[in-house]
């Protein structure tokens, strides 16, 4: 269990760092954030997308156990639920810190604007969180509760709709052609499932019960699921990029170029495509490696890292392209620039949240 201990140690460190970040955030507001008014969403929003994606995916996996009763996954449900809850909390925490007025979050619950996708997401995730929590409590008390199945059904629906909804949240923005592509929201549930699979690989591969004989089989199935979902993901990426490039809308082309050849090209090619997609694909199609705890678990980590980068590559490129080209030089202020790299405070808060999520 040295791995677990190391991880705890790292998590504790991250948490400490995170406490500093949160303190800075709470005392100085947004002054130390690196995003501005043009790249107006930063790391925290990307992390929100990332975490709630995992959360939805993890819940889907929990239904394998409690709803569909797939024998192979019996017993993994509790961990999946736990994961869903923790990552959801992390996601919501992340977006909460991002708000200009954290203290006004309750405003959203007043049903002021039920047609805002963001409001829908807040209500939806709150409900989803409640369901995950109640489910977990039920599971801990007794897995035989009559309430569990209906809860699972509602939760499954929510996990699909909400992950799609997150896609819609930005997909409805006609102002940003890069987001406003036909298939855009549709890919989000798939991404959720895929990142859920990644999380399960980590949970089962690195932290699974050593005495469980089903473990290699579970890993193999999770691995295959991941492989399939990775292929679907590549298809979506191709669909996105080809629509953008062939469509030729300048803002769109610029955004794609920014992803592939811009400042952070390496994040796309090395982290997202190389380590996050190709390597897991290659490793997990090999039964021997796929069934190996360590290999499978670490592939899960890589998949998650790939997704984190992929989320960032969805949020930022659309924002780094000026809506009107001449805005670049119209007014000079650091907040009115088109490049973005998260500030120390942002990293701290995010790492703190990751640490917090890891502590349980």
């Amino acid at each position: 269990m040295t791995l677990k201990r190391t991880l705890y140690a790292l998590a504790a460190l991250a948490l400490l760092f995170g406490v500093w970040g949160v303190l800075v955030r709470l005392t100085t507001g947004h002054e130390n954030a690196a995003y501005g008014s043009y790249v107006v969403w930063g790391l925290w929003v990307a992390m929100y997308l990332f975490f709630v994606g995992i959360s939805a995916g993890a819940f889907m996996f929990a239904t394998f156990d409690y709803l569909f009763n797939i024998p192979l996954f019996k017993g993994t449900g509790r961990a999946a639920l736990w994961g869903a809850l923790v990552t959801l909390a992390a996601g919501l925490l992340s977006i909460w810190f991002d708000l200009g007025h954290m203290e006004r979050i309750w405003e959203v619950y007043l049903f002021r604007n039920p047609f805002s996708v963001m409001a829908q997401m807040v209500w939806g995730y709150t409900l989803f969180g409640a369901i995950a929590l109640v489910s977990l409590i039920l599971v801990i008390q007794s897995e035989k509760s009559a309430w569990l199945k209906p809860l699972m059904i509602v939760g499954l629906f929510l996990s699909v709709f909400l992950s799609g909804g997150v896609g819609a949240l930005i997909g409805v923005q006609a102002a940003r052609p890069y987001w406003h592509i036909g298939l855009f929201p549709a890919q989000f549930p798939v991404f959720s499932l895929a990142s859920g699979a990644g999380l399960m690989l980590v949970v089962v591969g690195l932290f699974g019960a050593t005495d469980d004989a089903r473990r290699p089989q579970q890993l193999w199935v999770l691995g295959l699921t991941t492989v399939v979902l990775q292929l679907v993901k590549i298809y979506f990426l191709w669909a996105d990029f080809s629509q953008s490039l062939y469509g030729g809308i300048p803002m769109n082309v610029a955004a794609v170029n920014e992803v592939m050849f811009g400042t952070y090209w390496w994040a796309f090619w090395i982290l997202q495509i190389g380590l996050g997609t190709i390597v897991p694909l290659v490793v997990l199609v090999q039964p021997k490696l796929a069934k190996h705890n360590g290999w499978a678990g670490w592939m899960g980590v890589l998949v998650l890292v790939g997704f984190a980068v992929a989320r960032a590559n969805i949020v930022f490129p659309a924002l780094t392209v000026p809506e009107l080209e001449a805005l670049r030089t119209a007014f000079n202020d650091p907040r009115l620039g088109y490049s973005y790299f998260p500030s120390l405070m942002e990293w701290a808060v995010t790492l703190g949240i990751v640490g917090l999520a890891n502590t349980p």
Partner: protein
Amino acid sequence: MSNPATATVDRRTFLKSAGAAVAFVTALNTEPGRAVAAVDDRLAAPPSVEAKKGSDTLLRMQAELQRALQKKPGERRWVMVIDLRKCVGCSACTISCVAENKLPPGVVYRPVMEQEIGTYPNVTRTFLPKPCMQCDNPPCVPVCPVEATYKDENGVVVIDYDQCIGCRYCVTACPYAARTFDFGATYTRGTAEAEGVIVGQATADNYERAANFEYREAYARAGRDESPIGNVRKCHFCLHRLAEGMLPACTTTCIGRATFFGDANDTDSLVSELVASPNVMRLKEDLGTEPRVYYLT
């Protein structure tokens, strides 16, 4: 009535003058009494302000503003017209707006965008001031989770600073980059405090922290988290100035006299005339946002 002089005032005269007087009383909106009901209101000539073609545009716009202010809010349609042939790219509007609304660093309501067109020696530069377009179909409004931004009764897209949670969803929704976020900075931040030698931040801050009067509320950027810090901010056609019969700051200060403002529902207004020019255009019309800011090219 007992004054004998009244006998000499014939009925016609009386009605005319009565019309004017009663119109005035009505305008006061106090204790209307029976007098208002008693007089045929066709005789109460609507107040008209003289403003003709050929007079100075500012005079005319001010007169038209007075006229528009006498209408019900829903009946007027504020629009802005910017004549790009007259814009000299000086950015006086940008700074007058910063001053009027006490904007902090990085918050800008009306930058002037510059573009070079052509190849040497056949080349020119265009200057395009870009306020909020006050779209009739604003993409920023439906996305707001708390309805903190909405079209007010005048048709101006406004932000309720006390309701806005600062999620910046509207910023991403706006195709014109008209919205910026108040990060809470001040210009004087980072000034060395050379005790007793230079002014230093504390004193200078004082000016920056003084209240602006956007939306007719006194918003001092006093604390770390007090609105409008942590809010999204944008051009609001200087609603607080309009309420007092003053044109938006950018319109008044414009040294090329390139910015025009008024009520497009008033068919006699300058802006109505300009909007009907053959050389009129709006930004990103294809998005269906129906901007209320028109450009003459």
